[in-house]
C-alpha cells in the first residue's frame, strides 16, 4: 500500500514535471503572433525575399509607416528571391505575407517548397513593384570606372575561359586602360537569386550563338537561365546582393554583379563600374535613364513574360529587370487565426493597400512608393505597369471572396 502510494506519487511527479515543462513548449503551436483583432484596423504584415528589391522596400516601408500610424510592417527581410518564394509558400510558419522575387514564381518553384496538398500558381498573384538594373563592378587596383565589357566577355570570365585582367579580348575593347596581369576572381551568388537570373538571362540573350556552354549556368538556350548560379569554374560565392558587394569590395581583382542601388550604397564599388555593350552596339554605364529606356523598349510584361534584358535602343542599359511581390490570392490562407472567414482580413487589407501604394508614384501631396524609387537607384514603374499592379491586386480576396483593395 505504502509502496503503491510512493510509486503513484513518483509517477505523478514525473508526469507533472514533464507536462509543466513541455506544455508551454507545445503551446507555441497555436499562433499568438498572428492573433489579430479582426474588428480593428490595426494589423501587422511582413515581407521577405529579393535582395534586388531590398533598398526600395526598406525606404518605402519607412515612408508608408509615417503616413499610416495604425499599421505595423516588419522590416523587409533581404533573404534572396528563392527564399522569398519559399517563405510566402510556407506563410503559415514563416509569418511572411509577401515574398519578393525578381523572377515570377512558377509551378516548379512551388513543387520545390511543398510536398503534399500544394497550392498552384493560380493560388497566388504576382505584383510588379519595382524596376531596377544591375551593375558590373570590379576591384582592381588602378582600374577606374568605365571599363568596357560585353556579354561574351562576362560569360567567358564566369566560365573560366578568360582568367586574367589583361586578356586579349578585354584589352581589345579597352586600349586606353592599363590592365594588370592578375587573375580575375568572379564573385557569384551562392543563394537562389533573382539577380543571378537577370544576369544569366542577359548573358544568354546577348551572347546567343557566340559562345558555347560552360560550367556556369548561362547558355545559348533560355531554359538554362537560373536563379541558382551553381558553382562556376572558379570564384567566390556570396549570399545576397550585399554579400556580393562586400565580397567585391573586400577581394582584390574580383568582379561581380549587383543591383544598381548596392553600387550607389558602396563608395568602393561606385568608383569602378563597367560600361556594358547594349543591343544597339553602345557601351553604357548603369543609370536610371538607361534602365528606363531598356524597360520602355518592351512595354508589356506579365508574370509569364517578364524578361527585359538586352532590349534595343541606343540609350538602353542592357541588364535590367522588374521585381515582384508574390501574394496569396486567398488572404485568409495565411491568416490562420481568423475564425470567421467571411470577415475581411485586416492583415490582407493592409497587405494589398501597402503593395498598391508601393507600386504607384502617387500624386503631389499623396506620394506613392515609386516616388522613392529614384533616390535608391531604381526606376519608377511605367504607368501601364502601375495599372497592371492594381489590376493584379484586385484579384486578392478574403475567404468570403470579397475584394480586399
Amino acid at each position, binding site marked *: 500500500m505504502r509502496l503503491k502510494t510512493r510509486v503513484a506519487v513518483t509517477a505523478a511527479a514525473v508526469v507533472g514535471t*514533464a507536462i509543466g515543462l513541455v506544455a508551454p513548449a507545445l503551446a507555441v503551436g497555436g499562433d499568438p503572433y498572428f492573433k489579430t483583432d479582426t474588428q480593428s484596423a490595426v494589423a501587422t504584415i511582413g515581407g521577405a525575399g529579393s535582395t534586388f528589391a531590398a533598398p526600395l522596400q526598406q525606404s518605402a516601408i519607412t515612408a508608408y509607416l509615417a503616413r499610416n500610424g495604425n499599421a505595423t510592417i516588419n522590416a523587409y527581410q533581404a533573404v534572396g528571391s528563392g527564399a522569398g518564394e519559399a517563405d510566402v509558400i510556407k506563410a503559415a510558419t514563416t509569418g511572411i505575407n509577401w515574398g519578393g522575387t525578381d523572377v515570377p514564381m512558377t509551378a516548379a518553384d512551388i513543387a520545390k517548397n511543398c510536398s503534399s496538398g500544394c497550392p498552384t500558381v493560380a493560388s497566388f498573384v504576382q505584383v510588379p513593384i519595382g524596376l531596377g538594373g544591375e551593375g558590373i563592378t570590379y576591384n582592381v587596383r588602378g582600374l577606374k570606372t568605365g571599363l568596357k565589357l560585353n556579354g561574351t566577355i562576362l560569360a567567358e570570365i564566369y566560365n573560366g575561359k578568360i582568367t586574367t585582367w589583361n586578356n586579349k579580348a578585354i584589352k581589345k575593347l579597352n586600349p586606353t586602360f592599363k590592365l594588370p596581369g592578375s587573375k580575375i576572381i568572379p564573385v557569384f551568388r551562392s543563394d537562389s537569386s533573382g539577380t543571378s537570373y537577370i544576369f544569366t538571362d542577359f548573358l544568354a540573350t546577348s551572347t546567343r550563338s557566340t559562345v558555347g556552354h560552360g560550367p556556369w549556368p548561362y547558355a545559348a538556350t533560355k531554359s538554362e537561365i537560373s536563379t541558382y548560379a551553381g558553382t562556376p569554374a572558379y570564384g567566390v560565392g556570396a549570399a545576397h546582393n550585399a554579400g556580393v558587394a562586400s565580397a567585391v569590395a573586400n577581394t582584390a581583382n574580383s568582379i561581380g554583379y549587383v543591383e544598381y542601388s548596392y553600387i550607389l550604397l558602396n563608395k568602393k564599388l561606385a568608383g569602378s563600374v563597367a560600361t556594358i555593350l547594349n543591343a544597339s552596339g553602345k557601351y553604357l554605364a548603369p543609370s536610371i535613364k538607361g534602365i528606363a529606356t531598356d524597360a520602355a523598349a518592351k512595354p508589356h510584361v506579365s508574370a509569364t513574360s517578364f524578361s527585359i534584358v538586352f532590349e534595343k535602343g541606343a540609350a538602353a542599359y542592357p541588364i535590367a529587370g522588374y521585381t515582384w511581390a508574390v501574394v496569396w490570392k486567398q488572404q485568409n490562407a495565411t491568416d490562420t487565426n481568423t475564425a470567421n472567414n467571411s470577415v475581411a482580413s485586416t492583415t490582407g487589407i493592409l497587405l494589398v493597400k501597402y503593395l498598391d501604394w508601393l507600386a504607384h508614384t502617387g500624386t503631389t501631396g499623396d506620394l506613392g512608393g515609386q516616388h522613392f524609387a529614384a533616390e535608391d537607384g531604381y526606376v519608377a514603374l511605367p504607368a501601364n505597369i502601375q495599372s497592371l499592379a492594381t489590376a493584379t491586386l484586385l484579384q486578392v480576396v478574403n475567404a468570403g471572396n470579397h475584394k480586399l483593395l
Partner: protein
Amino acid sequence: MSTGPITESAPGVAPEGRAPGRVKRPRARSDGAYWGILYGTTLIFVVVCATFLVTLVTSSFSAWGHSGLGLITGTTWNPDKQLYGALPLIIGTLVTSAIALVLAVPLGVLVAVALVHLVPRRLRTPMSSFVELLAAVPSVVFGGVGFLVLAPYFQQHFYPWLQSTTHSFGPFSGTFSTTSILLAGIVLFVMVLPTIVAFSRDAIAIVPEEQIEGAMSLGATRWQTLWKVVLPSARTGITGAVTLAAARALGETIAVAMVIGNYFKVPHSLLQGGTTLASALATQWDGATTLTISALGALAVILIAITAGVNYAGRSLLRRANQGATL
C-alpha cells in the same frame, strides 16, 4: 532515526525508517516526490535528446530516399537541380580540421608544457585562463576577424608569399582569392587551441613527480625529461585533448561559413574556397526547398555521427588517462 544511504539509486525503495509513524509517513511521501522530481526532470532531458536524434534522422529520410548513398559519394551539390552530393562538404570538413590540428597540436602541447613546467605554480591557473579565454570568444567574432582582417591580408600578402616559397606546390597551387580552405583551417586552429592547451595541460600536470625526478636523476636535461618521459606518459590524455579539439573543429559552423568561401566543389587547392558540412547547414538554409531541408537534415545526421563519435572517443581517452594517473 535512520539516515539511509544517500546514494541509493531507485525511487520508491528507500529503506524504512524507524521513526514514529507520525513522522515517517510524510517523510516517505516527500522522498517519493524527491526522487520523482529528480528522475522526472532528468527523464525530460533524456526524452528531448532522444527526440532530437529521432527528429533529425526522420527529417533526412526523404533526402536519403531521393539521393541514397549519393548523398555521401556525390560530388555535385546543387539544390536548384536537386543534386545533393555531399562529398565536397565532407572533404572540406576533414581538410579544414586537419589543417587546424596540424597547426594546433604542436603549439598547444608546447603551451601546455610551458604552463606546467615554466610558469610558477601559483600563476598557472591565471595564465591558463588567459589562453582558455580564447575559447570564450564567440565564433562569429572569429569569423568576423577572419573575414574582414585576415582574408584581404591573405590575398594581398600571405598567399603570394606561400606560392612563391613553395613554387605553387600542389595544395598551394592555382588562382586564389580572399576566403579559402586554408584560411578556414587557420581560423579553426586558433579556435581549437584552447581545447588542446587545457586538456593537455591537465594531462601533463598529472604525470607523477616521481617520473620526472626519476629521469632527472639519471642525468636527463629538463627537455629530455619532458620529451622522453613526461609527454609519453601524458600521451593518452594529450590524444584525448586532440580528439576533443578535432570534434570541435569538425563541427564549427559560423566562423567557417564566414571565411571558407562556400564553394561547393571538391577542392583542388587549399587556397581556393570550399565548404564544410556544418557551414553548409548555416549557408544553404536561406530559401531552402523542402527537399533541400531534408538534405540538410541528412548532413546534420552525418555530422552527428562524426562529431559524437570523435567526441566520445576523446572523452574515453581522457577518462582512461585520468584513471591511469590515479592507479
